[in-house]
């Protein structure tokens, strides 16, 4: 019952000029330690909002988030965020950007030399050791994203939150970054929640794919359990039947949401809301299992 990260019946309503806007309704998700979760859904449905609530950058108006049974009330380095646009401080070098985070988190627990070592180690992890002294303006987009990941990893977060981390990259760079991320994940066994628009990326990286319904009042539509052996290799998977099946499931979901937009969503939301909350979770998991077979 007690899971590592528990997103518990979260809903959020923003006050807007045209009255209150209910963006999320009854989002319910339990995440185990070391699990890699992808959030996928149409643009504007509320994926970033979910992530920001987990990060503590936004406050849910209903329900709440529990991390190791403690309620999340404010942002903190135990839930490090990799922002979509990297958000490095342009006036600090690559090294200093990561070092700022390291100094902040390990102020009391690590000596100066240890912090220096830890900063370098994390930059090594993302293969950025050659550019320690460069400014963000002087490195490529992919490199910036690597530094952003190194900064997040260096905080030793309990949960790593990534908002379309590779969205702005060209496909070749994205491929490299996905492979590095899989390597790091295999080594460190982080708990990760990642938002993506890329179906292949979701299937390749995730243990579970959370497919969100369209907004407003978006919720979790389906959950797909991806049971592919790790380490995963994109080349051999390209021919793999299971892989293509998972892929097709996600594409089908997104397509249905796209075509049948409003009426279908409303109907489904109604049935979802009608079911008991724990049942919903159970149903979703069963559905996931069914899909996994």
């Amino acid at each position, binding site marked *: 019952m007690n899971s590592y990260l528990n997103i518990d019946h979260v809903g959020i309503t923003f006050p807007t000029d045209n009255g209150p806007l209910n963006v999320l309704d009854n989002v319910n998700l339990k995440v185990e330690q070391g699990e890699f979760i992808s959030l996928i859904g149409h643009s504007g449905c509320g994926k970033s909002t979910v992530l920001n609530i987990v990060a503590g950058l936004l406050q849910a108006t209903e329900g709440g988030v529990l991390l190791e049974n403690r309620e999340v009330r404010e942002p903190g*380095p135990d839930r490090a965020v990799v922002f979509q646009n990297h958000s490095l401080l342009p*006036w600090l070098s690559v090294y200093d950007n990561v070092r700022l985070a390291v100094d902040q988190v390990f102020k009391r627990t690590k000596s100066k030399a240890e912090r220096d070592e830890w900063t370098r180690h994390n930059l090594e992890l993302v293969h950025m050791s050659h550019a320690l002294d460069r400014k963000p303006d002087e490195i490529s987009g992919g490199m910036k994203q690597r530094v952003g990941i190194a900064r997040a990893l260096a*905080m030793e977060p309990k949960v790593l939150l990534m908002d379309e981390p590779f969205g702005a990259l060209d496909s070749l760079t994205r491929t490299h970054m996905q492979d590095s991320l899989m390597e790091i994940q295999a080594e460190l066994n982080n708990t990760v929640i990642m938002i993506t628009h890329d179906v292949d990326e979701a299937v390749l990286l995730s243990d579970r794919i959370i497919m969100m319904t369209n907004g407003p009042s978006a919720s979790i539509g389906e959950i797909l359990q991806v049971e592919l052996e790790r380490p995963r290799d994109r080349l051999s998977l390209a021919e793999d039947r299971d892989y293509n099946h998972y892929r097709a499931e996600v594409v089908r979901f997104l397509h249905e949401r796209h075509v049948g937009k409003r009426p279908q969503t409303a109907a489904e939301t109604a049935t979802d809301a009608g079911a008991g909350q724990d049942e919903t979770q159970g149903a979703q998991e069963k559905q996931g299992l069914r899909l996994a077979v």
Partner: protein
Amino acid sequence: MSIAIRSHKTFEITWLENAIGFLASDRLTKTTGKLARNVLVPFTAILVFLLLWAAGAQQVQTSLGVLPGPAKVWEQTKALYDEHVAERDKAAAFYERMDKRVEKAIAAGKPAEKIERMKSRSYTGKETFIDQIFTSLWTVMTGFVIASLIAIPVGIVIGMSQTLYQAFNPIIQVFKPVSPLAWLPLVTMVVSAVYVSDDPWFSKSFLNSAITVTLCCLWPTIINTAVGVSGVSKDLINVSRVLKLSWFTKTLKIVLPSAIPMMFTGLRLSLGIGWMVLIAAEMLAQNPGLGKFVWDEFQNGSSNSLARIMVAVIAIGFIGFLLDRGMLALQRTVSWDKSAVLR
């Protein structure tokens, strides 16, 4: 230094650009092309300007004679410099004589206080053009530095707090458009009422000018700093929230660096305004400085006056330009954004 070319591009005055380019032999080979652009083009433009000036000035007849052309102005520039050198020589001679007299007095065993009195007399010659330049520079820098020391912290605080911004905004908006010269009588009255001292550090006229400059330099810096501070990217603020940076670290590492470009925009605006204001204030209040020089020459009304005023006008423009470049150089050393354009 391809400013001229750039502004032409903005307005697409191709024929003028071509003409200047042709005059500067812009169609030379690629290697000399750069030289042509950086040296020959501005040089040619200046030459054309001087020719037009020389031709145009002859047509204008004033009560003080023909409007002086470049040659006359250059002649007066030299004359002003010579006067300065002569004045310096006189001063040196004065102090030499005084030293001799003091020595004699000591030899004659005069009482110490009398010798002190002799020594304390200083040379009271006429302020030369060059002296006036330095007076004005010193005044504007004092006023500007005081204004910046007040405006930057105020701007930072206002930019960080929405409430304070709303509180201060009306005050700033009302004071900002006040003509600096409207301040001058007030400042003069307040200074003469408040600044009473037997042994003043600064003369009152200096204080009046400097404070007037300060009052005008405050607003652009406050506003631009506040805008820069409040415009810190939301993503970077989120980074600081995730990292749980303290207020101080956040200000130092995130808010200030990202506000620096705007801050410097404000400072440069302020200094430019301050310099213009100072000249006007000096003219109006007869406070020592370049403004007084211009006014005195105008009142003087000799045959050289117009040329001398033109020397002053050019000097004022040139110094204003150098001040702005100085700020830009400072910005480049302080700011992380090395791409700040020279304009």
